[in-house]
């Protein structure tokens, strides 16, 4: 067999453009690569790098008004015939015959990528009907077989269920079953694990690998997570602003990157693999320091009966960062909100030390006391878009808490300018609206708003999750700088272990509303005491292709009973 026989898809100088008012926006600008049988090509890049559009261009399903302007996409079939997909009519018969049958695709958000009102069996079986005209009962047989392949429990009942009755990981399995229905020779996976927890992500990556081996598919895997790339890729394509920066075997990309951008990307990933230098240099907080926040036996049960927070106890010392790590549904966000009484916990105490030294129980505090406490304890949210009003200028947004506290006029203006400088924004930008800022800058606006009233404790709920990896470490560095300048304490909620390790002094691991382990970050990360922590740690993709480990990860069985 020669080399060319292994190449299933060959993309040459692909150009996809979006016409805008100011001219043509080149989303994909001269991209070339090959997909080989049984091999995985990872396309990495930050948001807006054009990786998703590249994938969609192959099947000509780019959203309007985007169109392919040049280049070729050569598909080679088993019988040796080739077709240039880029030359086909996007709505025509020929390209439709390729979609789903020869090249199948799975997407990022399995909930919104599946129809909520059609049974999953119908949605999976549909490709069979479209491409082979398979009769109904045969379709059902084949769908059951597919559901078994993707390891969905009780396929006979699952087949007649709807997407919202499944968890995120199960939905992604349904997507995969759908993609496999016609035995495609190429699978395009567009960020298929980004919306999933690390342990679920590890399972889905396992599954894709296994199916790839069984079917001999070529996989084009799009992701922004370098850890995932290191775990699964054979070859890597690094994209930046629509152009290919570097292409090569996975070892080369990680250990001997040729391009400056790749270098920076790998660096920012590796930086997050260890503790921040700022924190290594800082002397430890004396063990005997009286806590700023002392939470004891906190419990919150939702009206549905779900025990979101279950007997949680933790302390935060002045100047300390306490990380709360856990998977979605572990109750970490709910717990964080209880600390500011956004939710009313039913039992326990949240003792907070006021600047004058006496303790107040936030859980039972009256309105007046709560108002004062809320100027000292602030919150930063995950979504930098949704948490800023689109109808207010940045200056107004940052000034809002100050105005509520009674500041006005010149003093207010000066303070807003100071705050913007502190978080690294030009004070001259104060008249602009949030949409004019990038994700990282918006999160800085949120941070400026949070520190406006000189708080003593900030609850940061997934503050860096929506940011690209290069921005993530910048944001964390900024938060630590402000911590040292202002003597802040943080409760840092995150599902991302690397972020926790980078900046937290201590970490509490949450699982189903309970804290299963709490301790110094180094000790929890390097020598976890609880099995769940061990499972969580071993499911995290490691950005080193020499040390692939999630396939041999430790599994926490108690978590799989539900």
């Amino acid at each position, binding site marked *: 067999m020669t080399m060319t026989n292994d190449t299933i898809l060959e993309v040459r100088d692909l150009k996809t453009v979006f016409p805008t008012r100011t001219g043509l926006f080149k989303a994909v600008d001269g991209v070339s690569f090959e997909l080989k049988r049984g091999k995985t090509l990872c396309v990495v890049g930050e948001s807006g790098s054009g990786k998703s559009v590249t994938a*969609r261009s192959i*099947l000509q*399903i780019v*959203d309007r008004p985007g169109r392919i302007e040049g280049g070729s996409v050569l598909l080679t079939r088993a019988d040796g015939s080739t077709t240039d997909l880029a030359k086909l009519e996007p*709505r025509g018969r020929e390209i*439709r*015959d*390729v*979609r*789903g*049958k020869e090249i*199948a*695709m799975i*997407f*990022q*958000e399995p909930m*919104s*990528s*599946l*129809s*909520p*009102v*059609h049974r999953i069996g119908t949605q999976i079986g*549909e*490709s069979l009907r*479209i*491409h082979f005209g398979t009769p109904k009962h045969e379709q059902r047989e084949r769908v059951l077989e597919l559901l078994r392949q993707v390891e969905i429990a009780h396929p006979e009942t699952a087949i007649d269920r*709807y997407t*919202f*009755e499944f968890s995120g990981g199960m939905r992604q399995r349904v*997507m995969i079953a*759908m993609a496999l229905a016609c035995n495609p020779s190429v699978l395009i996976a567009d960020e298929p694990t980004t919306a999933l927890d690390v342990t679920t992500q590890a399972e889905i990556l396992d599954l894709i690998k296994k199916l790839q081996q069984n079917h001999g598919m070529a996989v084009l895997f799009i992701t922004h997570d370098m850890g995932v790339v290191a775990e699964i890729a054979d070859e890597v394509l690094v994209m930046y602003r629509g152009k290919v920066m570097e292409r090569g075997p996975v070892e080369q990309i990680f250990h001997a990157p040729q391009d400056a951008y790749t270098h920076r990307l790998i660096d920012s990933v590796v930086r997050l693999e260890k503790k921040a230098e700022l924190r290594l240099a800082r002397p430890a907080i004396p063990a005997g320091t009286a806590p700023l926040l002392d939470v004891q036996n906190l419990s919150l049960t939702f009206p549905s009966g779900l025990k979101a927070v279950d007997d949680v106890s933790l302390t935060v010392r002045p100047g300390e960062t306490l990380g709360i790590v856990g998977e979605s549904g572990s109750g970490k966000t709910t717990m964080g909100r209880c600390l500011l009484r956004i939710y009313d916990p039913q039992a326990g105490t949240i003792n907070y030390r006021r600047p004058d030294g006496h303790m107040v129980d936030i859980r039972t505090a009256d309105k007046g006391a709560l108002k004062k406490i809320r100027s000292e304890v602030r919150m930063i949210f995950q979504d930098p878009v949704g948490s800023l009003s689109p109808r207010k200028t940045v200056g107004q947004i940052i000034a809002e808490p100050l105005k509520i506290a009674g500041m006005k006029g010149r003093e207010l203006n000066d303070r807003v300018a100071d705050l913007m400088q502190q978080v690294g924004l030009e004070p001259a930008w104060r008249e602009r609206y949030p949409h004019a800022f990038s994700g990282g800058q918006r999160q800085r606006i949120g941070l400026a708003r949070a520190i406006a009233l000189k708080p003593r404790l900030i609850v940061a709920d997934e503050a860096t999750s929506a940011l690209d990896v290069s921005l993530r470490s910048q944001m964390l560095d900024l938060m630590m700088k402000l911590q040292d300048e202002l003597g802040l304490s943080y409760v840092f909620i995150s599902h991302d272990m690397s972020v926790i390790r980078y900046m937290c002094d201590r970490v509490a691991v949450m699982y189903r509303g309970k804290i299963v382990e709490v301790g110094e970050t180094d000790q929890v990360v390097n020598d976890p005491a609880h099995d769940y922590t061990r499972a969580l740690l071993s499911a995290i993709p490691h950005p080193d292709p020499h040390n692939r480990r999630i396939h041999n990860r430790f599994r926490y069985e108690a978590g799989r009973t539900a």
Partner: protein
Amino acid sequence: MLRYIAKRMVFAIPTLFAVSIVAFIIIQLPPGDYLTTLMADWASQGGAVEAGTVAAMRERYGLDQPIYFQYYKWIAGILTRGDFGISFDFGKPVTELIWNRLGFSLLLSVLTLCFVWAIAIPIGILSAVRQYSISDYTATFLAFFFLAVPDFLMALSAMYVMSAWFGQSVGGLFSAEYVDAPWSLGKLIDFAQHVWLPVVVIGLGSLAALVRIMRANLLDELSKPYVTTARAKGMSEFELLLRYPVRLALNPLISTIGWILPAVISGEIIVSVVMSLPTTGPLLLRSLLAQDMYLAGSLILLISVLTIIGTLISDILLAITDPRIRLQ
């Protein structure tokens, strides 16, 4: 599912009760009662009535009693015997007068709803798929034009056009020879020949709202990721459109039955008066003018009941078409 329906039905009971009270109060609101209207009528014709006679009649009709007692008597009659009281004006039981007309009203409303849906859905789809095109603008303009033209004006113009230019007999639901005839194939054909004009006239007024709702819903759905998923399966664009986004965009449309139905019914009242249709509309107008309170009250109550049933049906339909509602 059955529990859901049962729950919806139980919720309908207090609504019906409230509607009956409001209907009764509204009829009592204008000063005077049926007898003062009657006296005024007689007086204008030159007759005079002795005060004693009026008092005696007032007592006979029970109009001298307090309003809550009158309401109690009326509602108790309906609930226990299905007796809606006597129409003063016609001197007949209300039930005798209204059932036939109510049937035509219901039929006209249902036909109108079907007509509006049948027109609005395809136009809405076209408007959304070809957003900002000539056809989108034309459809939108026409829909808003019909929304802006008052029902009665549309009814008059339609009647004029049909009779003056096409020589068709307009007004009523039947030709003269079929009005009192028993139902037959000929009568049915005659009915169909007459009924389409009021259906079109009433329906066009509600068209705009539905077209715009369909267009907006579909525009939201068209950009959803599941559409891309289906496209990536290799489905043809037309099948894709109908099977996924249109299917989902219909759900909010179904819930519009609840408020389109009252609009259709009130439109029907005006149009029926203009086109002299044998429905409840002209009867309601006459009873209100005459302060014929039991007749008017019963009509308002029954029309409201139809509306509530319409809402109930839309709730049930929605539960059938949307598993998210059914299973939660």
